[in-house]
């Protein structure tokens, strides 16, 4: 194997001409795959293409996320970093891991650096780099939402988009994007999976009880969007329809049987995200609580109290927020999710949209 290929496989960035990326990659891979045929076992593998758009200032955390994603999901990762420059540079490197049996499985990362002018021409930069026949995902890490022209040009050519409402400077705008583009999801949605699982566990085998809920409260700190998304999901799964906005945080809803219900978003100081969700039923005189205890924030405590039915307290481990895990969770799930769509639409309404 020649020196450039050895460096490339070792994860060292190789500067390349941005117009000749695929040609250089072919040349770099050739010695490795030829040796693979002889039995040394290096496999170039791409389950998909992940296109990442981020600000240059976020280069380090984004790279760490990409490394973690590549380790679990061998793919072509195209990172476009937007900084203060007016040209485009490119570098490539491989991300390898040992598979069971000892062979080496490698994906590849292409890092492009450019300025705002190039960002505006993103589709032209990125589309030639999408691999055919495999899932293409766009992760938009910038705090500004993508321009309409970018959305129109790029989204139809990718299979799914991922944005982060928590990092958005204009959450309302991003929620608008999420509600109009079913193939775009908020990464926060995937980070809330354990909360949703916890709520679901209350009603496994007792699903009829859920229809008797008439109040939902979500307690959170930091960005409003996380609480609204969870509340939107709860209301959506219960089949509630928005009825009236009583105040900024208190809304009235209509249940499937026509009875009234309410959703309350309670805000606490700080920036730690979700703290609790409480479902209540006045008919059953009870409540079902999922809480993140202050003394054990890495877990969720489940408690239920009601007149006719109760449940032993339970506990679930709450994985810390992890963007790479959220992306991997997204990659492992169907692109369109009706529950998420409903939740997003309700969240937009809860936040006044």
């Amino acid at each position, binding site marked *: 194997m020649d020196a450039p290929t050895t460096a490339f496989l070792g994860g060292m960035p190789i500067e390349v001409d941005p117009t000749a990326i695929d040609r250089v990659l072919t040349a770099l891979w050739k010695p490795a795959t030829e040796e693979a045929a002889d039995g040394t076992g290096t496999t170039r593998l791409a389950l998909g293409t992940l296109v990442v758009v981020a600000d240059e200032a976020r280069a380090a955390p984004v790279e760490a996320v990409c490394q973690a994603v590549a380790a679990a999901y*061998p793919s072509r990762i195209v990172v476009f970093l937007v900084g203060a420059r007016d040209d485009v540079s490119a570098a490539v490197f491989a991300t390898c891991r040992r598979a069971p049996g000892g062979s080496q499985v490698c994906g590849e990362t292409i890092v492009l650096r450019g300025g705002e002018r190039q960002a505006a021409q993103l589709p032209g930069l990125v589309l030639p780099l999408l691999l055919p026949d495999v899932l293409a995902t766009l992760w938009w890490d910038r705090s500004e939402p993508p321009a309409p022209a970018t959305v129109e040009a790029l989204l139809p050519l990718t299979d799914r988009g991922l944005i982060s409402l928590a990092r958005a400077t204009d959450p309302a705008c991003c929620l608008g994007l999420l509600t109009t583009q079913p193939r775009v999801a908020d990464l926060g949605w995937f980070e809330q999976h354990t909360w949703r699982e916890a709520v679901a566990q209350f009603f496994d085998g007792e699903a009829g009880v859920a229809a008797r809920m008439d109040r939902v409260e979500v307690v959170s700190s930091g960005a409003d969007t996380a609480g609204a998304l969870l509340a939107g999901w709860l209301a959506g799964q219960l089949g509630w329809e928005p009825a009236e906005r009583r105040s900024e945080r208190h809304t009235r809803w209509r249940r499937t049987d026509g009875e009234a219900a309410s959703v309350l978003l309670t805000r606490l100081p700080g920036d730690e995200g979700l703290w609790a969700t409480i479902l209540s039923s006045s008919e059953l005189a009870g409540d079902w609580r999922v809480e993140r205890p202050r003394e054990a924030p890495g877990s969720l405590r489940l408690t239920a109290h009601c007149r006719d039915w109760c449940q032993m307290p339970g506990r679930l481990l709450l994985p810390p927020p992890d963007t790479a895990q959220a992306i991997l969770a997204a990659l492992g799930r169907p692109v369109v999710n009706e529950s998420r769509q409903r939740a997003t639409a309700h969240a937009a309404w809860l936040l006044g949209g």
Partner: protein
Amino acid sequence: MNDVPNPFRDGLTRSDAPAPCVFVLFGATGDLTARKLVPALWQLVRGGLAPKQFFVLGVARRAKSDDEFRAEMRAAVDKFGRDRPADEAEWEAFAQRLGYCVCEFTQPAAYQALAQRLRGIDASHGTAGNRLYYLAVAPEFFEGITSSLHEAELIGPDQAGGWRRVVIEKPFGTDLASAARLSGHLHGLLTEDQIYRIDHYLGKETVQNLLTLRFGNAIFEPLWNRNHIEHVQITVAETEGIGRRGEFYDQTGALRDMVQNHMMQLLALVAMEPPVTWEAGAIRDEKAKVLRALPAWTPAQVASRVVRAQYTRGTLAGVEMPGFTEEAGIAPDSLTESYVAMRLTLDTWRWSGVPFYLRHGKRLPKRTTEIAIAFHQPPLSLFPPTVGRSGNTLVMRIQPDEGISLNFVAKVPGTRLTLQAVKMDFGYGSSFAQTSPEAYERLLLDAMLGDNTLFTREDEVASAWRFVDSVRAGLAEQPRDTMAGYAVGSWGPAAADALLDGDATWRRL
């Protein structure tokens, strides 16, 4: 459990969750419990897949306290578990759901004590009267235990006070008559839907993926018939000998130990027609049809289609090992086979005339299980001979390196027209950087969920026995000197090569 779907499960990773239950584990001091069952249950609990209200009650004859049982299971999880407990708190949360009950299987009074213990667990752990009984015991106890459970009103077709399911481990009988007797006995106590005959092979990822490959892709099914397939090879090769199972194995043999169950199930999955729905009944109907299409053979047919053999002294991985009849527990004049190969055909439109070659043996050079679909050669040979084996073969590797590969020929770069066999390979381990669950994890969860798709139905068992019994009867009539030998570490007797038609050869694995 009511039938209203949980609205909060819609769209979650787990669309269904098992109802609260007690997992009652007969044979709690046995090897299977320590190696497979409790590590699998631990993994399910750890992954949040088991019910929240869940309890594992170990049942066995040996006196033991709850704490002693927990300590033993902790050691088992440490040794055999896929994941170890992250800390003591995590283990303790699981351990509190473990208990032990001494039960002399043959004493009816012991089942009253068991019933009382189970009622207590329902009260303390909210397990709602649901029970999954797992019989990890020798088959001679199946009837006694289930009868006693029934007499103590712990099982029965009436599930008003909570569901009742019974999982039994193979062997499901030792021949058709005993299998029918066992099924008849169980059906006197339970409905077929409550009986889960477990074959751990069906919990393996590639075995399940076989159906996905066939019915989730449009390209394979049109080729999946006699017009395109030359033959099918199913191999279950083991490097292990008979270990400490000498006496059992001498009564059983390769045919009954492996062919009647695992290999017949693999055959059924390869050969079945598309099910009308993705539901247990529909899938099992199609598997059963395949096994029904296996004719009972005459002794003359057995003589020409089956080769049996015993391993003889030889070297495997540099270690010299004794021959089969030198093993502890094996009679020196034993006529039990440690290797069996056969050529069979299925009397169906799809498969008429397509040979299925099955081979299984102990002390072979590699531990590997695979299904290989060999496609016809092109009708006209336009090219010079291929470097390496020619022909297209689709191989589904079931263990140890689960995956799928397709062999085809390609032109070697250069000015000359030279063809070489190449391989496209999909490996679970390399494509999905996540560990597949152990087969038992999947199967135990399915049993808790009441999904018996991957469990064997009574009629499948009966059809497989009908065929295997005819083979055994034919072998019994053969003279002693038809028992072939093969050296430890070889791929079996030379006589097995003669089973293959035309140019076909056993795959070199």
